[in-house]
């Protein structure tokens, strides 16, 4: 067999595992930390790897493939499962034909998320088995195992990663792909796939029996193993927490769980009976701990480890041994923070500088533009979930009545609008909301690393496809007032925003300019701008657009006319790409096109 050792991320390993499993169809919506799985799968032309507009559609597509007898993979970040939950819960009832694996990539610590929900709860809630790898080799192996379990038990299988498994790299042995045991064909089986009440009532007991069978299987599943060591301390753990515990307490006895739902009660009892103190090391919820307590077994868990945020080897050591790390140096307090920031030349900057200037209440959404929240722009007032900006604006308008007119706008990205904004905008039209929606159309899914979507004209695998026309789409929903603006023209854009915000009917402004990092639409900028030290008055207006290329230089001085100033603006030519916003904002004409980069 052709074997090759590579250093792979958990995400790359899952993609490899899906390929080796003979997956035929894979669907996902991008979301950190899951995005790279489909990106890596897209290299295999024998697999139909696709971006879906949202996670619900992605799962339904995978279900169709599975009902047709093909192995199917569906991938999403933790909050994506909320969107896909509707089909998931009933898929648990229908079961399937080709194996179906749903990857949920959770984000403890919220490195790039709005909450840190623990999706192990979904496995219990939807009554489906869940595997949890602790490194990249397991990420690959468990993907293969998940397909086998899926077909053997006629159930979808969830594969849960966390950011530290998805984005850490470790050594993986690659193998050749296998041919799945099932073959794609059309087979009618309405009793199984048509979930009318009469059929669903018959399927529910099947689900309950399946969970019992899976609990028995968990006792012999090789991914669950006891590692005997010192009998003073026993540790039950899974996923990345296993690695942290092994790092700081290698000599303890372990029950290392590869399957976190259902749990192997027998193995848990065998370990518990033979050790003096039993710990559960797990991130976020006491998911395993609560079930062990319900078995009547004494265990130390959340009294020793935090409920919030991710674990790390320091927290594992503190919880298991009660000792703090020995650090020759303490963390330095008060260092200037370095948060992520809108790129130089970002098309969102112009819009947010206007919204900030007009002091509007801005209902926001999920994407790069959420960074418009940060000072000095400070121009996002709500951000909760994909598509929520539109509903928030409608609800605010209905609650406040005419008082809200001219004071509220909603902003949403193109990809987010297509994900879950369309029905919300339909609701605005239907319920006669005076909502003004700005669609920040940068022609990509920027925050997750620039993925294609139905508005870009390209598929994940690089094929040209039909491109949705946003103007026609919003008009078809019944919006009568639709304006397209160039966000690099500040005065014009400001005028449009003011006018539309004061309209008592639904209106949409499409701010259209490609992401500056776009590979496809290289923007026309080029020449860096320069702030003339002879002309700059030190008024700081240009700093308010939060461009990383503009720097304040504190130095007492004066301009050419001898007007005193406390400092001046300076533009870093290696960062500036000549978008011209600062030049438009400067009232004194101090900024202009400078030397070529």
């Amino acid at each position: 067999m052709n074997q090759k050792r590579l250093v792979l991320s958990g995400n790359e390993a899952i993609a490899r595992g899906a390929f080796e499993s003979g997956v035929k169809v894979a669907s996902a919506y991008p979301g950190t930390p899951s995005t790279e799985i489909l990106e890596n799968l897209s290299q295999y032309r024998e697999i139909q790897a696709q971006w879906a507009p949202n996670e619900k559609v992605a799962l339904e597509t995978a279900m169709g493939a599975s009902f047709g007898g093909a192995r199917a993979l569906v991938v999403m970040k933790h909050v994506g499962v909320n969107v896909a939950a509707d089909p998931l819960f009933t898929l648990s009832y229908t079961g399937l034909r080709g194996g179906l694996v749903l990857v949920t990539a959770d984000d403890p610590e919220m490195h790039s998320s709005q909450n840190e929900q623990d999706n192990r709860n979904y496995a219990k809630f939807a009554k489906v088995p869940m595997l949890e790898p602790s490194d990249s080799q397991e990420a690959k192996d468990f993907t293969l195992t998940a397909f086998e379990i899926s077909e053997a038990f006629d159930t979808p299988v969830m594969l849960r990663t966390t950011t530290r498994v998805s984005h850490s790299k470790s050594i993986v042995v690659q193998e050749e792909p296998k041919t799945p045991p099932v073959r794609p064909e059309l087979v009618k089986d309405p009793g199984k796939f048509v979930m009318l009440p009469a059929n669903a009532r018959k399927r529910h007991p099947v689900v309950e029996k399946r969970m019992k069978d899976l609990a028995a299987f968990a006792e012999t599943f090789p991914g669950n193993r006891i590692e005997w060591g010192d009998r003073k301390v026993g540790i039950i753990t899974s996923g990345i927490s296993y690695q942290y515990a092994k790092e700081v307490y290698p000599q303890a006895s372990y029950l290392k769980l590869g399957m976190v739902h259902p749990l192997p009660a027998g193995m848990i009892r065998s370990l518990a009976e033979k050790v003096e103190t039993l710990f559960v090391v797990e991130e976020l919820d006491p998911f395993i701990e609560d079930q062990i307590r319900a078995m009547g077994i004494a265990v130390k868990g959340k009294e020793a480890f935090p409920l919030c945020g991710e674990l790390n080897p320091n927290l594992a050591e503190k919880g298991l041994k009660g000792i703090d790390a020995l650090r020759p140096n303490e963390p330095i307090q008060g260092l200037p923070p370095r948060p992520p920031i809108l790129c130089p030349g970002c098309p969102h900057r112009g819009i947010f500088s206007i919204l900030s200037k007009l002091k509007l209440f801005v209902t926001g959404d999920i994407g790069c533009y959420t960074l418009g929240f940060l000072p000095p722009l400070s121009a996002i007032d709500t951000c909760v979930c994909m598509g929520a900006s539109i509903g928030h604006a409608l609800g605010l308008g209905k609650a406040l009545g005419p008082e809200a007119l001219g004071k509220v706008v909603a902003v949403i990205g193109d990809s987010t609008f297509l994900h879950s904004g369309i029905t919300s905008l339909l609701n605005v039209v239907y319920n006669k909301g005076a909502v003004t929606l700005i669609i920040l159309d940068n022609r990509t899914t920027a925050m997750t690393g620039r993925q294609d979507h139905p508005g870009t004209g390209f598929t994940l695998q690089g094929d040209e496809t039909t491109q949705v026309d946003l103007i026609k789409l919003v008009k078809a929903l019944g919006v009568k007032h639709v304006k397209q603006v160039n966000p690099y023209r500040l005065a014009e854009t400001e005028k449009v925003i003011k006018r539309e915000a004061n309209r008592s009917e639904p209106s949409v402004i499409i701010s259209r300019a490609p992401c500056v990092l776009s590979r496809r639409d290289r923007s026309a900028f080029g020449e860096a701008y320069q702030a003339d030290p002879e002309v700059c008055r030190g008024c700081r207006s240009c700093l308010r657009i939060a461009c990383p290329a503009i720097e304040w230089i504190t130095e007492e001085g004066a301009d050419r006319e001898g007007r005193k100033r406390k400092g001046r603006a300076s533009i870093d030519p290696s960062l500036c790409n000549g978008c011209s916003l600062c030049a438009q904002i400067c009232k004194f004409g101090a900024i202009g096109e400078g030397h070529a980069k």
Partner: protein
Amino acid sequence: MRNNSVTNILLVGVGGQGIIVASEIMADTFLEAGYDVKKSEVHGMAQRGGSVSTHVRFGPKVFSPLIKEGETDILVAFEELEAMRYLHYLGPKPTVILNEQRLNPPSVSLGKDRYPENIADSLSRSAARFKKIAGKDLALRTGDIRTLNIVLLGAVSSFLPVAEAIWTENILRRFPPKAHKANLEAFQLGRKA
């Protein structure tokens, strides 16, 4: 208590400086040199000019992909302020490689915060071995400023028990042929600095 057979390398800096590529070459190199290796960083929002840190660990057997605070053997700081942000990760006898470059974070650009002074001095006091690298100047000598990360990789390579040929082979594998010359030169400039 710590597992002394594992070497902990922490790379810190700012999104866009090429830290992740450098750490990937490192991980591939350790694999080829026969070690177990793990590395970890967070993607996503980090690419928007934010603070970036990558943990690389190698040895006979590595469990955690994250380094414990107080146990970093080698710190490679691509940017001065970022070195200070991770000072508590330094072990008792660390090697510190500092790229002499200051990139202002937004609050400093806005004139609200001051960029800390005397960073090199305080770092050298915490380090058993300390090396300053004029990374930007060296990278410019290759004709491509983007080779900064490979200059720093060269600098750290001189402290690591891996044959030079394995390093250069993994650097070549990472880049298209037209970038080979500049990156090999960058590696040598860093290694000899």
